[in-house]
């Protein structure tokens, strides 16, 4: 993940209502700047009190600060907003582990596994829970393997060999987490995290829109910008692929590039399932 606290901070300052605070706070948290992450997450939460991911993030930061009681409340709140939120289910499982309630921990992990059957972290934690109380004493930190991982997954390999793999192709999960690829703006600056944050939720909104219109599933979203074009597609049910090119690349050509990249992404996702 690019080290762009400064960039994200500047972008968040320009657009304080955006969801960039999620990425910024997570980045700060990963760097061990827990107090700064706490401030960013809390400010974001004040602006987005009904956002499940914001409560989940805040809970993880509270857990980092060993404030487990409030972390519990925040994960509980997350589940009230989004009952199948995997991060919150994992987080609560972690807290139950800590107090020795292995049965509750396993129950929450089983719920997480139902919501995310392909998540290797959940399977690993569940195996640990079923392994017995002695394993619990290992006390895994909140995000290894119980809480959601935030690191990109071997990103270079997703689009290996494809044109623009490191500056114009991006693979995201449903929540906007970067799975592979990277984006650079025309000045060469890395804008991966900022773009990913804005695209979180786009696939769900696109699906709701076409459902309302009775148009079946959505197959692609193409947009012309003043300086370039983008094409979004779903390589699998919950992933989102973004292709960005300058205006010299016609929209039809962009759709073909997107198809090829989607095929590579689908293979990669299936191989890593």
């Amino acid at each position: 993940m690019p080290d762009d606290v400064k960039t994200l901070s500047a972008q968040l300052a320009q657009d304080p209502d955006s969801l960039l605070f999620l990425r910024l706070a997570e980045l700060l948290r990963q760097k061990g700047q827990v107090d700064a992450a706490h401030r960013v997450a809390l400010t974001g939460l004040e602006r987005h009190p009904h956002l499940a991911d914001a409560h989940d993030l805040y809970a993880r930061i509270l857990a980092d600060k060993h404030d487990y009681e409030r972390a519990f409340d925040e994960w509980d709140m997350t589940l009230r907003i989004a009952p199948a939120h995997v991060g919150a289910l994992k987080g609560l499982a972690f807290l139950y582990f800590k107090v020795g309630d292995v049965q509750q921990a396993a129950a929450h992990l089983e719920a997480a596994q139902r919501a995310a059957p392909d998540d290797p972290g959940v399977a690993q934690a569940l195996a640990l829970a079923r392994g017995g109380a002695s394993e619990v004493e290992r006390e895994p930190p909140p995000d290894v393997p119980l809480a959601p991982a935030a690191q990109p997954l071997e990103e270079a390999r997703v689009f290996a060999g494809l044109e623009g793999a490191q500056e114009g192709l991006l693979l995201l999960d449903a929540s906007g987490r970067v799975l592979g690829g990277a984006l650079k703006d025309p000045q060469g600056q890395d804008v991966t995290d900022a773009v990913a944050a804005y695209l979180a939720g786009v696939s769900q909104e696109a699906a709701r829109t076409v459902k309302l219109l009775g148009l079946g599933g959505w197959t692609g979203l193409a947009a012309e910008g003043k300086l370039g074009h983008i094409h979004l597609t779903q390589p699998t049910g919950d992933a989102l692929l973004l292709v960005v090119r300058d205006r010299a690349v016609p929209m039809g050509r962009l759709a073909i590039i997107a198809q090829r990249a989607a095929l590579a992404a689908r293979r990669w996702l299936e191989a890593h399932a």
Partner: protein
Amino acid sequence: MTAAAGYGRALDLITRVRGVRGAMLVSAEDGIVVADQLMEGIKGPAVAALASSLTTRLRRAMEAAGVGASVFWHLQAEQGALLVVPTGGAGGILVVAVAEPDVNVGLVRLELLRAAEVAG
């Protein structure tokens, strides 16, 4: 020409294209339908709200990516499409068309841009 007449003329430009099931002018800021010509059964207000939200997300993502604000976007689906021309930035109007899958996208895009000039 009154605003309502202007809006009607703008929508006529779009709905006369073969394969277009309806058109709307939507407030970009709050997703409220300003004027519409939709076939029966299309849930205009709900679609307008989602089109507005998607436009905002796309605008922000595209600006962050350095490709500038969206001038036209096209949501493709198995059985049709939603086509949108945003005008005047965040406080402007969205010109929206709902179309059949075999519609001439290039033609609809052209009429949406013309309609945007008329409505604007």
